[in-house]
């Protein structure tokens, strides 16, 4: 036993009495900390119930255009929007825009995140360099989302976008094609924002793999690259999905950077086209989180009308929680495998 531990045990020896006062105090303090857990759970359930009751009372209740019943209102909320008056736009284009953003973001974040996680677990020895990488990852995780937006605006939109315009679209100047906020730059910004999440999730999955997988592969004559990319990575795929799903959940909820790099109030033409690569990269797009932000601050909501705000908020919350639940299930699969892995 180390010195520190010996010191701890000897110093506390005096205090270790099972007196009644101590037992009561123990009950009290554990009770308090357990009650904090309960309180947190109550807060999240309470917020959820608040949104659900408000949304339901609006759907089923009497307010709204003449003759509107709950299915009409639901349909308007999701698909058409304008029938609700006030220039409110529908949720569906926002969901589609978010989907486009997420797909594009995945294309950027998955390779970089997976490669970094592989480097940290499979290739690198623990030196100052890997420590620097880990500190960078933690710091990237801690950088506020708005700063990613600021950086994205300065570097991607005006910097890279301006260069792309000068090189490839100079005939359209001064109308910028890529030198303006759009789907591509938003996807890159969100990819950077979500990089730490993906790295951490994949690292978790890679650490959970038994070492005999790698040993067996090397024993059979594989090179390091083959071991990593043909044996280890396929085994860790579920954790890659976990990371991407968590990144998606964060992308759906994070509005602040998108205010600066591409989300707009109303862009009903979906960013898909018939030509390759089927996504319009320079267009602006709608986003569910931005939709709620716009609905809250830029729409007249009298005290009796809160129901539809709650509905939009509920759509967002349900989207994110279902993504989180899927990630949890996949993660349980990844970690649960550990028990079956080594029969010895």
């Amino acid at each position: 036993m180390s010195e520190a531990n010996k010191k701890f045990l000897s110093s506390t020896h005096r205090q270790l009495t099972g007196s009644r006062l101590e037992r009561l105090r123990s009950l009290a303090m554990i009770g308090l900390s357990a009650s904090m857990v309960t309180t947190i759970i109550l807060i999240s359930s309470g917020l959820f119930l608040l949104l659900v009751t408000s949304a339901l009372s609006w759907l089923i209740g009497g307010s709204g255009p003449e003759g509107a019943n709950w299915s009409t209102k639901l349909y308007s909320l999701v698909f058409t929007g304008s029938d609700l008056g006030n220039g409110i736009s529908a949720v569906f284009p926002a969901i589609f825009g978010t989907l486009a953003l997420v797909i594009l973001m995945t294309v950027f974040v998955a390779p970089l995140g997976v490669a970094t996680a592989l480097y940290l677990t499979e290739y690198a020895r623990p030196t100052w360099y890997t420590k620097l990488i880990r500190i960078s990852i933690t710091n990237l995780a801690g950088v506020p989302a708005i700063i990613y937006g600021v950086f994205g605006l300065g570097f991607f939109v005006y910097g890279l976008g301006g260069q792309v315009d000068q090189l490839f679209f100079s005939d359209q100047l001064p109308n910028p094609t890529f030198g303006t906020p759009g789907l591509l730059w938003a996807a890159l910004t969100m990819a950077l924002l979500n990089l730490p999440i993906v790295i951490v999730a994949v690292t978790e999955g890679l650490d959970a793999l038994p070492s005999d997988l790698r040993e067996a592969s090397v024993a059979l004559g594989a090179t390091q690259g083959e071991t990593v990319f043909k044996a280890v990575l396929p085994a860790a795929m579920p954790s890659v999905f976990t990371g991407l799903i968590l990144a998606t959940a964060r992308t759906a909820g994070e509005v602040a950077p998108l205010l600066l790099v591409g989300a707009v109030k109303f862009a009903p033409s979906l960013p898909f086209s018939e030509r390759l690569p089927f996504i319009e990269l320079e267009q602006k797009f709608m986003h569910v989180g931005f939709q709620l932000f716009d609905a809250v601050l830029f729409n007249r909501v009298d005290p009796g009308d809160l129901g539809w705000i709650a509905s939009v908020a509920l759509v967002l919350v349900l989207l994110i929680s279902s993504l989180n639940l899927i990630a949890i299930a996949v993660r349980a699969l990844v970690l649960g495998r550990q028990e079956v892995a080594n029969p010895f």
Partner: protein
Amino acid sequence: MPVVNARAIRSFLAGLIVRFAGFAVIFSLFGMFAQMVTVAYPILAPSTLTPLGADLKTSAYGGKLEEDPIDSTRNVSLSVAGDWSLEGVVGESWFWVNSLTGFRVENTDLPKVWSAATAVGSNRGVAIAASDGVISHHHFLASTREGDAPWSKLVEKIEWELPVIKAAGHPRLAVLALLSEPSNLTIIDFRNPQVQLTYALSDKPSGLFWESPSLLRIIIGERSELFEFATTDIGGAWSRLIKPVHYEGYTAPTFLWLPLPSSEAAEPKYSIAPLLFGTLKAAFLALLVGAPLSLGAAIYVGFFMSPVQRGRIRPVIDMLTAFPTVVLGAIGLFWIAPVFETVLTGLIGIAILFPFFIILGVFAMRSAGLRLVRLDALDDWPLKLLPVVATAIFLSAWAGIAASGFLPGGSLVEYLEGQGITLAYFNSLLVGLVLGVAITPTIFSVAEEAIHSVPKNLASGALALGSTPWQSYRDIVLPLALPGMIAAIMIGFGRAAGETMILLMLSGNTSIIDVTVFEGLRSVSASLALELPEAPRDSSHYYVLFVMGLLLFGITFVVNTLAEIIKDSVKAKTQGV
């Protein structure tokens, strides 16, 4: 001999890609910082004066100067706000003259003997080169009594020995261009008076005037020379961003954030101190709300729960992350803010009575013979305590709300009004509450990791020697986990400092420095979100916004790195047990 075949080359390339990825992560972090510095850097640029060359077509300009009735060297009449103007003749006093009534009021603050006087800053101030070697800059201020003349206040004084030939004030800024013996042109920027731009002219000049805010024309005999004057909105004095500044029209130096003036003639104001203060204040208040909640839960989940239950309860607590901050802001804005007085009294009741009711409830559950909560079965206390917690919250909130009725005045707001305190609708407490709920999952996960990583056998040893579970936690685990918990709080602080949506919606965006919690605040992140989309690229406003973004980035960087160091030091201590 190493094998060189297709497989080996592919493996080598795979290794390169992976190494590149690792480097890219470091590169992106420092690249972000470097890029923002590059964008923000021009705000520090000093003002410049560049000669553009001579212009031979002077007769028109020469003529214009002669017809100009305002001779800055002998007698001057400047129009000030309203119906008043300021008139001065060398050797006599200055007078405020009302153009409607003809009233004349003497101004004794301005020097009587001067060689040049001119209006600066769009007629909001005057610069006078007195004959005793001092150039002074005064602001015009409205009087505080109805109908009275305005008054002037001395803002800056500069020593100036050379005799002044002529002076011309900048049409918009508090900048003075003057010609002094024998043939020097000097620009004095009163925003940054110690740095003066001087240019030696070839011949003795006879006159000067500002053609536009960036073009200065000097008349030298038959010729004229053009100069370009380029400056940022702060004139190269970066301290104007941080210290209180004496802005035009104000009686004393203050902090103001008003970067978009209502007309091109008004002065933009870039004090970022209130914004930084607001960010830090909001983060601090959020910690007050979020830390007890998350640390208490982390202690229970990290130490007292079995691994199975812990694996189940952690995702449930993480469900709070399903509420993005937009949703929390919306709930705060529409459901909490309208009834905040009630919420606040309830919260005060909860803060005081909740622990008491919980402890009572725990004892009650044990002594009623039910033995529902046992020290040897610690796993499911949260579930078993659910009715107790719900009742405790309800009772303590109700008690708080009822108690506020007994305050002098009848309600909390009335009582505060009686004390001279107004609770603003968008106040810091509201922000702190919602932000605290938002950062709870963050602090919880980091603190819980820290507590859980303390090896269990240390505590088991204590238990075996007869201590209660709480004692084993408090005396063994807590000292070891404390750095980790502190790191969790710091990470939570960083997260709260960077949060945008809640602050945008609930803080009221009032750029004030207020140490009480009853007023609103303005944060750096909300200002970035509101103003950056509109700031014209490469304008001073754009640069200052990037400076603020850098400061925010720096704060979170320092906090997060410190937290990492603290966490690592804990890992080193608990290794090898």
